C-alpha cells in the first residue's frame, strides 16, 4: 500500500502542477458561472435547466480531463520511458496500475469537487432569486448523490482508458478508442429501445446480442440522476430499481476493468 500511495502522490502532484489542468478547471468554472447569466432566456422549469447545465459542464469537464490529460499522462509514461524509471523501484506492475489510477482519480475528484461545490453554491444563490413557480424544488441530498454517481461514471471511464492504454501504445489511438467506447455506451441503449418497439421475432437474436454487448459497454445513463435533484419523487421511484443496484453494477464493472488492466500490464513486455 505504501508504494501505491507513493506513486499516487507523485501522479497527483505532477498533475496538480500542469497548466493544462488548471486551464481546464478555469474554463469549466467560467462556463458554470457564465451559464447562470443566461437563465433569463428560459421562462419555465428554470431549476431543471440550471441543474442540467451544471451537471453537463461537470460531465464534459471530466471527460476532457480523461481524454486530454489522464490518457496523455498514462501514455507519457510509456512514450517517454518514465515507466522504466518508475518500475526500477520495487514496484510491481499491479502497484503501478493502482497507484497511477489512484493519483489520477484523486486529481479528478479534486477537480470535480471544486466544480461541484461552485455549482451547488450557485444553485443555492439563484433559487431564492427566482419565483417559486419556476424553481420550487431542490433536494440537496439528491444533488450530492447525483454528483457521486457522476464521479463513479468518470472513474469507470478512467479505468477503461487505462485498460485500453495497457493494450495499445500512443496517446492518440487510446484517446480515439476511449471516445469510441463512450459513444457506443451512450448509443447502445437507444438502439435497444428502438428495437424493443418493433416487437418482431426476427429481431430477437439482435436484441440478445445487444443485451450481451451491454456487459462490455454498460449503460452509464443508469447513473444519470440529475433529474432527481429537482424532483420530489424518491430515487427508487425515479430509477425504477433499488438505488444500490446501478451503483454496485458500475462499481463491479470498474473493478473487473482494473483487474483486466493489471493482468495485461503483468504480462506485457515494456519495450
Amino acid at each position: 500500500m505504501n508504494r501505491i500511495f507513493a506513486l499516487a502522490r507523485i501522479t497527483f502532484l505532477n498533475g496538480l502542477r500542469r497548466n493544462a489542468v488548471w486551464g481546464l478547471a478555469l474554463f469549466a468554472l467560467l462556463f458554470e458561472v457564465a451559464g447562470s447569466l443566461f437563465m433569463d432566456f428560459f421562462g419555465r422549469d428554470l431549476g431543471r435547466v440550471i441543474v442540467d447545465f451544471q451537471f453537463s459542464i461537470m460531465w464534459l469537464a471530466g471527460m476532457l480531463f480523461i481524454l486530454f490529460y489522464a490518457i496523455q499522462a498514462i501514455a507519457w509514461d510509456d512514450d517517454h520511458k518514465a515507466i522504466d524509471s518508475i518500475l526500477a523501484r520495487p514496484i510491481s506492475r499491479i502497484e503501478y496500475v493502482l497507484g497511477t489510477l489512484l493519483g489520477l482519480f484523486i486529481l479528478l475528484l479534486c477537480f470535480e469537487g471544486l466544480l461541484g461545490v461552485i455549482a451547488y453554491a450557485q444553485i443555492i444563490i439563484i433559487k431564492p432569486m427566482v419565483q417559486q413557480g419556476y424553481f420550487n424544488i431542490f433536494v440537496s441530498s439528491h444533488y450530492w448523490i447525483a454528483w457521486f454517481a457522476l464521479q463513479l461514471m468518470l472513474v469507470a471511464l478512467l479505468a477503461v482508458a487505462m485498460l485500453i492504454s495497457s493494450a495499445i501504445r500512443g496517446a492518440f489511438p487510446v484517446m480515439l478508442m476511449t471516445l469510441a467506447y463512450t459513444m457506443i455506451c451512450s448509443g447502445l441503449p437507444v438502439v435497444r429501445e428502438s428495437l424493443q418497439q418493433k416487437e418482431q421475432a426476427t429481431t430477437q437474436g439482435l436484441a440478445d446480442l445487444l443485451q450481451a454487448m451491454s456487459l462490455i459497454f454498460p449503460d452509464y445513463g443508469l447513473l444519470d440522476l440529475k433529474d432527481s435533484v429537482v424532483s420530489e419523487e424518491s430515487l427508487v421511484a425515479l430509477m425504477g430499481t433499488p438505488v444500490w443496484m446501478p451503483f454496485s453494477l458500475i462499481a463491479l464493472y470498474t473493478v473487473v476493468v482494473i483487474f483486466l488492466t493489471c493482468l495485461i500490464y503483468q504480462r506485457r513486455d515494456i519495450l
Partner: protein
Amino acid sequence: MIVFELVHKTYPKQVGKSAAKHALKGVSFALKQGETLGLIGQNGAGKSTSIRLIMGYMTEDKGSVSVLGHSDASPKVRRRIGYLPETSSFPDNLTCMELLRFAGQCCDMKKKDIIAQSERLLKRLGIWADRNRRLSQYSKGMQQRASFAAALIHDPELLILDEPMSGLDPIGRAEIIGLIQDLQQQGKSILFCSHLLDDVERITNQVAILHKGDLLYNGQIKDLCAQQSEWDIELRSGEVMTVNHEDAIPALLKKHADEVIGVGRATESLQDAFVRVVEGAAS
C-alpha cells in the same frame, strides 16, 4: 549477481513498421559479486535489451536470466538493485527531493533516512542547491545526476547503469566516474553500458562486446587489446613516448632517467580493439 545463459530474444513484427528483430542470439555472460562489467556495442547491438531482461521489463524467449539468484526481477529483487535508465525521464513537474522521497518510500525507508541520504548524495553530485527546483527546469546533465541519486538512495548492492555519462559535460563525467570508482571500492557490483570507450577503460577492466545480438567477446580488456611491436615509455608528466625498436630504449632511459615511471609493450586501445572485433565479425 547476474547470469545470462544462452539468452534469445526476438521483438515481434509491428504492423506497418519494422520486421521481427532477433535482438539477442544465445548470449551468455556473468557478473560476479564486487565486479564491474562494461557492456559495449553499437546501437542496436542488444545492450538495452539485455538490461531490460535483467530488470524484468520483458521476458526472454529462450535461455535463462538470473539476477541475484532469482530467475525474475520481482519487486523484492529490485529492492537490491539501483538502476539508472539511459533516458532519465520522471514526471517532470516534480522536484528532485520529491523524486528521491518517492524512490525512498518505495524501498520502505524512513523519512529521516531519506532526507539524510538525499543530502549526502545530492551534495556529492553537486545539485543540493537545486533540490527544490522542478526537474523540468534541470539541464540534461542535472536530470542525469538526479536520476543517479534516485538509483543510489536505497544503497543497492547491484548497480545497472545504462549510459551513465550521457548528457554530461567533461567535469560532470569526471565526477560520475569518481562516484562509480567509490562505489567499486565499497564492493558494489556494477553492470554498465556506454558508448564512451575511454570512460569504460577508466572504470573497468572487464567487458562484453555485443554486435547485432551476438556476443563477440567477454573477458578482460588486456586480453582483448593486442600487443603491438612498439614500446611505450611513460613519463612522470603523463607523456608517453613510443619507440619502434627495443634497442632504442636504453638510450632514452638514460636521457630521461629522472622522469621515467614505466616501460612496457604498447597495446591497442579499447577503441581500436572494439573496431577490429566488430569489423571482423561483419566481414
